[in-house]
């Protein structure tokens, strides 16, 4: 009898697996598109919804939390989110420079170099427990994520933390808890972080099927970290109608032309793997390939359906093993590529001296309409701006009127980074150049990184496009799905979230003057000897009496 019941349960298992567990759903999608310069951009998106779940109210941090039972939602992450009462969290680990001019605007907008972490958290009960304050939880969150992702997130300390007001807006909604204050925003970035396999392994562990089946099987570290650009992201957000959503993304830019003249690609050429099994717990598992418009090509296998010029390949037990391949009939012609992004931003640090220099930024608007942008600069305290030297010019003609608003938080040596947020107007068809003098700090010998001569990487600036009504522009064409109902839902979400379009500039290298690391003892000895010598001479003169002696004949 017991055996029979067990068999029944076994039979029911697949049926259970294919549906959502206790209000959790997991979907995975892979987007692949060709770029104008022959490269291939791929984006994996794994999202897990915990329907009906709410972020933890920091007022309740002193009360024991309800027990956490997850089936698809990653437990390791859930524990961190609840322990530190994080409402919304974003972590990106990217490597390389996203080339906006040639590749256009990325599907996953956050392409800042290195590690970047930003979160919204509500203020805990004031005075009750100092560990419940936003800053203490932000510190603990960094340490916890550093452990989870094997990344140097812990070194995103107070010296790198900023709270810019305009450039970042929450992806989801922020609950209004009656006792808590408004949500506080914290952002930190570490451009020198190296992203590698040890970060991908914990990333894969957060997926319900790991990398054994489904689309995640394609995440082959040997190929991903060989790509021209690659970046992974973790995005946690909450919406009242949806619950908590965890989105894990992996975006990469491959270059099929690196080892030949053909743009042809396939799963096996890009990832050295094929999709062999469908992930049994995924509610939907899709591959979307943007199909070329003007050029003749052939695709294998044929897409199941075609929406918005995208071929859709659902992954089911019937379609695996899946190895999509595209073959172009004409050879690739290298040609000059028109600017793909609405703005082109260049940022440089000028000046040969190690004590001061000039930060020069040029923002080009190739379009025929003037745009307004937020320019965000977050600099560690080793570089400080001389804001009184800020100059804006178009073709060498000073244009102070282009600066509409400016907010600035000055740096504090050894403690706090500086934040500059300026709203600029960029006239149509012109290049605005912004120049501001910078001073470079001199560090204590213990504050230099181990490879001090290499210098420090300054985080890239962020340029956010504002639409005419002063609201950040929403992204275009990010949510596409074959499921009509899902598409409508996602369209509604797009309208609700109105995410700003951010453009990140590459990191800058600054080399602060270095002391001689080998001679702390020598310096202490030399300086102290000199001080003691002068002190001794002065007191010798002051304390001893003068006497006149008869010079003896011998």
């Amino acid at each position: 009898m017991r055996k029979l019941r067990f068999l029944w349960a076994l039979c029911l298992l697949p049926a259970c697996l294919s549906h959502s567990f206790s209000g959790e759903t997991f979907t995975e999608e892979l987007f692949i598109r060709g770029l104008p310069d022959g490269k291939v951009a791929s984006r994996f998106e794994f999202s897990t919804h915990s329907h009906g779940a709410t972020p933890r109210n920091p007022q309740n941090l002193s009360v024991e939390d309800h027990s956490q039972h997850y089936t698809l939602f990653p437990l390791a992450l859930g524990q961190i989110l609840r322990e530190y009462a994080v409402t919304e969290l974003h972590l990106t680990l990217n490597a390389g420079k996203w080339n906006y001019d040639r590749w256009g605007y990325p599907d996953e907008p956050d392409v800042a170099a290195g590690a970047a972490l930003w979160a919204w958290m509500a203020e805990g009960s004031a005075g009750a427990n100092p560990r419940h304050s936003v800053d203490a939880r932000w510190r603990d969150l960094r340490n916890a994520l550093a452990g989870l992702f094997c990344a140097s997130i812990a070194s995103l300390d107070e010296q790198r933390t900023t709270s810019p007001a305009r450039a970042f807006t929450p992806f989801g909604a922020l609950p209004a808890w009656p006792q808590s204050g408004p949500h506080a925003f914290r952002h930190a970035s570490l451009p020198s972080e190296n992203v590698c396999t040890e970060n991908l392994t914990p990333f894969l562990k957060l997926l319900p099927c790991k990398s054994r089946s489904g689309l995640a099987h394609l995440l082959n570290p040997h190929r991903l970290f060989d790509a021209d650009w690659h970046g992974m992201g973790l995005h946690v957000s909450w919406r009242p109608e949806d619950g908590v959503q965890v989105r894990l993304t992996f975006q990469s830019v491959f270059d099929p032309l690196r080892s030949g003249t053909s743009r042809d690609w396939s799963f096996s050429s890009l990832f050295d793997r094929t999709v062999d099994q469908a992930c049994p717990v995924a509610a939907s598992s899709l591959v979307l390939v943007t199909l070329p418009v003007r050029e003749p090509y052939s695709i294998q296998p044929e897409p199941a359906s075609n929406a918005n010029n995208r071929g859709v390949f659902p992954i089911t037990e019937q379609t695996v093993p899946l190895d999509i391949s595209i073959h172009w009939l004409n050879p690739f012609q290298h040609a000059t590529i028109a600017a793909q992004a609405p703005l082109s931003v260049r940022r440089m640090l000028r000046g040969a001296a190690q004590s001061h220099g000039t930060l020069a930024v040029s923002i080009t608007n190739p379009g025929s309409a003037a745009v307004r942008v937020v320019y965000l600069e977050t600099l560690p305290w080793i570089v400080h701006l001389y804001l009184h030297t800020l100059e804006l010019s178009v073709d060498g003609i000073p244009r102070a009127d282009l600066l509409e608003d400016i907010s600035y938080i000055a740096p504090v040596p050894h403690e706090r980074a500086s934040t500059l947020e300026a709203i600029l107007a960029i006239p149509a068809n012109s290049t605005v150049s912004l120049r501001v003098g910078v001073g470079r700090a001199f560090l204590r010998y213990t504050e230099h990184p181990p490879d001090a001569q290499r210098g420090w990487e300054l985080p890239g600036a962020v340029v956010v496009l504002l639409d005419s009504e002063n609201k950040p522009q929403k992204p275009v064409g990010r949510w596409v799905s074959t499921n009509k109902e899902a598409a409508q839902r996602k369209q509604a979400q797009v309208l609700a979230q109105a995410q700003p379009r951010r453009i990140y500039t590459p990191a800058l290298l600054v080399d602060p003057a270095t002391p001689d690391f080998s001679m702390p003892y020598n310096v202490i000895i030399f300086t102290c000897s000199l001080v003691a010598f002068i002190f001794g001479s002065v007191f010798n003169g002051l304390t001893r009496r003068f006497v006149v002696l008869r010079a003896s004949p011998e």
Partner: protein
Amino acid sequence: MKLSLDFGVVFPVLVAGRLLVALTNISDALKHDHQLSTPLTSYLNLQEGIYLFKNGIDPYSGGVFRHSPLFLALFTTVLPTSRTVSSIVWTLSDAIGAWALVQIWRARQRVAQTSRDGLIAAIYLLNPYIFMSTLSLSTSPFENTLALVSFMFATQGLVSPSLLAAALLLQLSLSSILLLAPLIMLLASSPVSQLASPRAFSGNGKKMAPLVAEFAAYTAVLTLASALVSGGWAWVPQTWGASLTLPDLTPNCGLWWYFFTEMFDYFRPFFLMVFSIHLLIYIVPVCIKFQYDPLYAGFILLGILSSFKSYPTMADQGLFLSMIALFPETYPYLRYPIVTTLLHLHAALLMPLFHHLWLNQGTANANFFYASTLVYACANGAALTDCLWAGLRIAIGEPQEGFVVAQE
């Protein structure tokens, strides 16, 4: 000779000449120079603070602006910050300093006019350490001028203006508190040279307590005014606190910056305390030893300050060197003036060179510049100990045949 040093001719000509040089573009080349201006006195930082203040951002919330709020009040209300106006104001400040130095000399000699007046003004106005600092628009020449004005009023017996100038000086630079004791003694006694005839303090000791109280009152009023100007007390750790805790390790010609760059983190507070207290140790012995000539005590303390304070500029040492002109009676007793001169020449040539090689050229390292600041400190120490020796040795008089002068 006498004609060429006539004060009425020399002084206007020198001031006019300095104005001409100040109005050239030379200050753009010098404003980044670390020997001439420190983070506490730099013109760039001053402009940045004024810009932030005018735009409604508290300049003391960051770590760049470390000037006194009195500068904010001065430059946001009375004076514009255009470079031409600044050059004129800075040069005029030096002119006042030179004039005060001449007044001190006249008061010390108890005469209305001497043939050395022009020479003394020239020694101050043409001193390259002071001249270059003024050209770089560093605010340390203001400190020099206030110190000299304070001593000038003290030698003229004008109590309140002297103490007010000293209180203003304290607002600009915390370490100038060293000058308070000789100043009070000077106000209570006479400025006439007593170096050759040492005796017990002649002044009225009872007069000193009210003087200190008056100084404290001025300081309290100015501190409150600073708090009102900056809208809080954040300026205290940023200005006075900076000279005690050394948050900015930008190189300068002093001894602190490299010492605390290379200092082990757990010893930093201890050595900051040692270096700060070290300055205070000198006050009492110097004032006791030179109780018969407080102006000389003040002069020696200025020398100590310029060698050992946390953010010195070359202008500080320039003030000490120019003040030697006030004490010609000690010249025969200087033991090694040529060595001191050569050391200063050596340091003054090496420091800019090594600074440039390290930070601009990239072909030297920090030790080069550090070594040249050690030479500069040696030069300061040589000048200081020699002046100290001469000031004490003068009491014995001319050496006699068959006798030697020694210390017990």
